């Protein structure tokens, strides 16, 4: 890791320089309390205080909601050609938990199989992180994701009059070399950065009883009444999955043109909370009940990948809580579940 300092005025110029040379995707005010990551043409467009985005900017770019995978042509034989689309982009202003969410997707899409479509986009992406203010539903601090140690090229922490900059990759080092106004760090800068992180961590208020959750999960697995209660208001609308920065499930479809000879295979985001997810041939459904689907989601987010990768797939961003019109709240539910265990 390379550590540098950049003055506030220099930062403006750094952004102008970056925007003039690259396609930069950054946060811009959208509607209500929400911002959205879109192409930025002028540093003034950037919403530096953004708090909420419906989707993770990294997932939106790397694993788009709909994506063509294969173009095919049926004649006497079947010709098929893979479609891998990517563009060089700079993702500016992504926060720590969304970087950690991206790190999870990086691992998922390159473990057991290599997802070429994801990987090509990932390699073409430069990631410049910065902290954003957590919402009241954010519990990233319980998921070790309020701070990122990898996944970004550069990370800017705002010390007030200057930025403390971390470069985690060769790409990040080059960005620093290309803009010769970064300064070396002093011991005071490190001290102040540590103070800054202490203050920043204090902004995460949610208190969740995550302790021993994994060890105890099995014991509540078959408590049907508990799960029925937790899932009672669920619409099975998938909003929790679809706004999750780490949900990776997709459905593959054939889209055949009207000539009935050409077409494309495409994938689109799927959701384990909708009944059709578990539907297979013969009209059998593995998870016809919403309580089983909720249990599956909590297990996938909090247990499965902790066992598989040593890391939760949940980064605690709180989007699923904010997107749920039925007010199903994973943070509250963890506490409810742990209370049940202690009885």
């Amino acid at each position: 890791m390379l550590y540098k300092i950049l003055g506030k005025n220099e930062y403006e110029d750094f952004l102008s320089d970056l925007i003039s040379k690259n396609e930069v995707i950054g946060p811009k005010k959208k509607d209500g309390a929400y911002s959205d990551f879109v192409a930025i043409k002028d540093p003034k467009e950037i919403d530096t205080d953004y708090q909420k985005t419906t989707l993770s900017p990294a997932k939106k770019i790397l694993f788009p909601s709909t994506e063509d995978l294969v173009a095919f042509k049926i004649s006497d034989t079947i010709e098929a050609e893979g479609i891998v689309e990517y563009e060089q982009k700079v993702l500016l202003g992504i926060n720590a938990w969304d970087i950690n969410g991206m790190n999870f997707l990086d691992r998922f899409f390159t473990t057991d199989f290599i997802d070429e479509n994801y990987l090509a986009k990932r390699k073409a992406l430069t990631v410049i992180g910065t902290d954003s203010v957590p919402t009241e539903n954010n519990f990233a601090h319980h998921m070790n994701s309020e701070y990122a140690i990898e996944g970004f090229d550069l990370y800017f922490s705002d010390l007030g009059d200057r930025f403390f900059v971390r470069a985690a990759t060769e790409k990040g080092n080059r960005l620093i070399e290309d803009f010769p106004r970064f300064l070396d760090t002093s011991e005071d800068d490190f001290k102040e950065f540590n103070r800054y992180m202490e203050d920043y961590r204090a902004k995460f208020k949610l208190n969740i009883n995550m302790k021993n959750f994994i060890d105890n999960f099995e014991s509540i697995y078959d408590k049907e009444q508990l799960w029925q209660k937790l899932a009672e208001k669920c619409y099975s609308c998938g909003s929790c999955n679809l706004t999750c920065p780490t949900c990776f499930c997709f459905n593959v479809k054939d889209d055949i043109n009207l000539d009935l000879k050409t077409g494309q295979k495409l994938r689109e985001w799927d959701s384990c909370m909708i009944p059709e997810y578990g539907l297979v041939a013969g009209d059998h459904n593995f998870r016809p009940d919403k309580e089983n689907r909720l249990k599956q989601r909590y297990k996938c987010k909090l247990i499965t990948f902790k066992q598989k990768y040593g890391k939760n797939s949940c980064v605690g961003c709180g989007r699923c809580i904010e997107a749920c019109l039925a007010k199903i709240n994973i943070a509250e539910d963890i506490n409810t579940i742990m209370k049940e265990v202690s009885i």
Partner: protein
Amino acid sequence: MGKPKVGIFGFTGCGGCQLEILNLEDQLLDLVSAVDIVHFTEAITEHSDDYEIALIEGSITTEHDVERIEKIGSIANVIVAVGACAVSGGLNCLKNLYGTQKAAELVYGDKKDWIDTIEVKPVDAYLKVDHYSRGCPPNRFEIVDIVRSLLLGRQPEIPNYPVCVECKRNGNTCVYELGMTCLGPISRAGCDSRCPNSASGCEACRGVIENPNVNAQKDLLAEHGLTVKDIMSQFNLYNACKGKNIE
């Protein structure tokens, strides 16, 4: 085997579903190459009673409609109901809430006897419908998908999940966050969340999903200041004929 012959028929409605087929523009030539359109009320003057597939828009609201729909049923092998009026009865069903005679009187006054009006019913009250292309207007690409699937002998993939799925895929801010109400959580997707994309609440023009959480939806709307009457009028806008399961 020649190209399958298709008839496109209009019953009681605004005619917008047929217009949606004409709006296919880029795909229209491909469509008329793939099938032989022998009747298309809104687009061609020629007519033939020889067709295998009938695409039907509009609901059945007169005795004359009943005669026509029964004739189509006796000819076509495959019936596709196109649009909310054909699928669920659509907006026309609001007439049933008043009662046929009362509605005729309200609209036509002392001339009400000139009007041959019966209880509004969707197409499947008279014919076995093979495929439904829901919505007001229907999604024209879904109509193509149904025709294409018929040609290929496979099932079209028509979503039974709620509008929220498409809305989130599109990255929309929830319209509830914008201070409005929406029937999206219990309504069938397939429209690409058309209304929420324009920051306006879903009105369930494609009907409700198979297992809607109606209690949660009622609580949600009540929380946003709607009375039971407001809630029922939201549900009934497109679904009064088939809304009995959500009362």
